[in-house]
């Protein structure tokens, strides 16, 4: 980039807060003509907020995004398109009930250009009168991409486009993206896959805790440097020495999963979970962990593979089946687990009262004693009669986990329980999890924050690209080791 040459896209000092949560503090990104720039960052670094601001779907509190030197702030996705920035989002932005041709008309896409790119992307035989709803996921991504390319965008933003694509299509996409740069346009490429980034990109911009922490030129062996930048100096969440080498439990596992495949993203997962054990699950977003937990909780039916509870094969067809087998899910979204308008007391009592078979009158006195005990243990700083929605997010999560202390639980599935919770409450949640395990529960613990693994878990499995690729003991689970594994940089599935 020469100084006289305006960059295609220039974002500086972008900040955005949602209530008390500061998602972005100082995000920066520049893209020159002929460049492909990777935007990288660990989970929670603020990537998706930044993408929304770049594409005009959100407005920043501070800072600016300029496209082709225009001083005006991009105000909406429509305006961003007119300025020459066309995004292809992680979720396809196609209208399911319209046919392909109508989806093109909706955004004034030239049909000839669209056809050309379809052919380039190995979808030349796709019918324009096909309904979007009837197309497979991979074709949707290709239609979305071809539609974007047909607009001849100066800035093409690809957000995790290749996640749902087979290898041959990934190659085509990379070729097409490279071609854009060769034609003097620019591409912003967002991906977790180092292999693709090193083949495609010129530079990488790394985001951490809401700020751009650096830019690196892509060169062989750059992975370590990028991982280091993504990690940085993290806030110390607790005693580092917390990880104690616990022996691997012997005997029959509480839960055994063998070669489980669940559509669309989980390909092959095996694990064994013993009573008294906390097994961590490490994965970047969308590697198949959602499918694993959904299948274990009875929300989704596996394509193949085996789930065993106490040595007996289980076929869950309904969440009630999983609950009956002693598997309890605490979902990442607290709103799914709690009755927000009801009191803390009722929420703690609920799993107990709603236990299958408990149709008789509630034993109120018994229940009251248990609930009171639970509240005391949870150290919830509010009157127990208050509505749950008036509690802080952290305290709500303490209720969703802690109520199982009152009722006893055999197998607990925790899905990112500390997302969006302050550090102090997090420190109260790890001992809760530990206490559950000490009571004899088996705990599967997925977290998007790697530093929690040595604090809360005995050992952890790593899922990458739908497969369990690694198993790490808590004593060895420093963040760098975990981050490398999560990016597929260890084991056989690593970077090409």
């Amino acid at each position, binding site marked *: 980039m020469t100084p006289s040459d305006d960059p295609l896209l220039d974002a500086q000092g972008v900040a955005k807060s949602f209530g008390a949560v500061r998602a972005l503090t100082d995000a920066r990104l520049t893209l020159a003509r002929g460049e492909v720039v990777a935007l990288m960052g660990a989970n929670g670094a603020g990537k998706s907020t930044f993408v929304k601001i770049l594409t005009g779907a959100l407005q920043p509190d501070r800072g600016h995004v300029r496209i082709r030197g225009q001083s005006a702030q991009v105000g909406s996705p429509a305006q961003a398109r007119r300025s020459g920035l066309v*995004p292809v*989002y992680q979720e396809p932005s196609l*209208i*399911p*009930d319209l046919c392909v041709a109508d*989806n093109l008309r*909706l955004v004034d896409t030239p049909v000839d250009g669209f056809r050309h790119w379809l052919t380039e992307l190995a979808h030349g035989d796709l019918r324009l009168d096909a309904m979007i709803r009837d197309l497979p996921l991979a074709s949707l991504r290709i239609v979305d991409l071809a539609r974007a390319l047909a607009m001849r965008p100066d800035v093409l933003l690809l957000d995790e486009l290749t996640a749902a694509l087979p290898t041959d299509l990934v190659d085509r996409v990379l070729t097409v993206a490279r071609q854009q740069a060769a034609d003097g346009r620019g591409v912003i490429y967002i991906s977790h896959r180092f292999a693709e980034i090193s083949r495609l990109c010129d530079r990488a911009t790394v985001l951490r805790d809401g700020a751009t922490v650096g830019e690196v030129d892509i060169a062989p062996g750059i992975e370590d440097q990028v991982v280091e930048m993504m990690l940085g100096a993290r806030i110390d969440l607790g005693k580092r020495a917390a990880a104690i080498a616990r022996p691997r439990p012997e005997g029959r596992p509480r839960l055994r999963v063998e070669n489980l495949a669940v559509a669309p993203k989980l390909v092959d997962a095996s694990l064994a979970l013993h009573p008294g054990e906390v097994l961590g699950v490490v994965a970047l977003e969308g590697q198949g962990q959602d499918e694993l937990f959904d299948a274990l909780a009875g929300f989704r039916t596996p394509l193949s593979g085996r789930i065993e509870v106490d040595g007996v094969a289980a076929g869950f067809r309904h969440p009630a089946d999983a609950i009956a087998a002693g598997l309890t899910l605490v979902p990442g979204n607290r709103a799914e687990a709690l009755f927000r308008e009801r009191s803390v007391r009722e929420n703690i009592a609920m799993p107990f009262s709603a236990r299958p078979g408990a149709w008789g009158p509630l034993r109120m006195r018994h229940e009251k004693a248990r609930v009171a005990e639970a509240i005391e243990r949870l150290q919830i700083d509010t009157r127990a009669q208050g509505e749950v929605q008036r509690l802080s997010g952290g305290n709500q999560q303490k209720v969703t986990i802690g109520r199982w202390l009152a009722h006893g639980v055999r197998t607990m599935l925790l899905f990112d329980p500390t997302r969006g919770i302050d550090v102090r409450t997090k420190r109260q949640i790890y001992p809760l999890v530990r206490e559950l395990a000490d009571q004899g529960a088996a705990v599967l613990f997925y977290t998007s924050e790697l530093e929690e693994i040595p604090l809360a878990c005995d050992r952890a499995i790593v899922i990458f690209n739908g497969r369990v690729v690694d198993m790490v003991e808590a004593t060895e689970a420093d963040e760098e080791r975990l981050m490398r594994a999560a990016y597929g940089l260890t084991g056989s599935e690593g970077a090409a």
Partner: protein
Amino acid sequence: MSLVQRNAWTLGLLVLFVVLLGVTRAIQPGFGVSGLESLARAALPFAFATAAMAVVVIVGGIDLSVASMMAVCSVTAAVLMQSMGGVPAILITLAVGTAMGLVNGALIVLTRVPDIVVTLAMLFVWQGTALLILASPGGTATDWMRSAITGSVIVDGLPKALVLVALVVAVVWVPVKRSKLGLAIYATGSDETAAYRSGVAVGRTRTLAYGIAGLFSACGGLGLLALTGVGEPVPGPYLLAAVASVVLGGVILGGGIGGLLGPIIAVFILRIIRTILTLAAVDPNVTTIVEGTIMVGVVMFGAVLVLRSRGAGP
């Protein structure tokens, strides 16, 4: 997908209607041209109410104030016709209806209160407005307006009322459907987030869809006036009937799928079922039970057919 496949539901409804016509003839051999004409006349306000409802359901909303808006339009036209000619009165009424619809839509978009709540509130507002304009049935319709929906046109057995509905709906809806606005309406109803990301002005689209519904409601009010000859300030039974016809007509509650032709055929189906049951001397209370049962049955049957043709289970 072929034209037949895409319009399978509408064609099915048309076949069902023809079968029901046959049944009517079988029960009452005297059912002929005049029978068809009165059927079409009675269906007129229902057809417009249904067209109005269908547009907002397609955009992903619902408008509970349709019948109230019809009442406002009916009394407005009845009062105006006494002081000015028929044509200016009709034009003003159409404008009033469109404006009411736009107000509904703008309130929904600006306040972000759910459609069902806003239009429920507006149901009462428009109801009161109608009573303010005319406290009791009154006013008048011009003679040519009344004759415009009476009898047949072109050939015997093609009721004027039917032709009028077809003409008005075609003139309003066909250009809209062929335009970017029509696409935007379907897109917004199908997936609002995807539409927004594609650059569709979602708020404007929803407001305009409600405006079109207001325009159809005005047509319904005018039809009502032409039918009865007086302005009627109390809303008729058009709200739930419109929802029923929309559902039976193949529009998915939730938006994005369906058209206006299916729901309008559904109006005629529901009317003729009523006629058949009356002719067969069925207790009127049983009639509504039968109507409800048929609705659930047809929609369920249709869902089964759709699943079969896609070769997929639930």
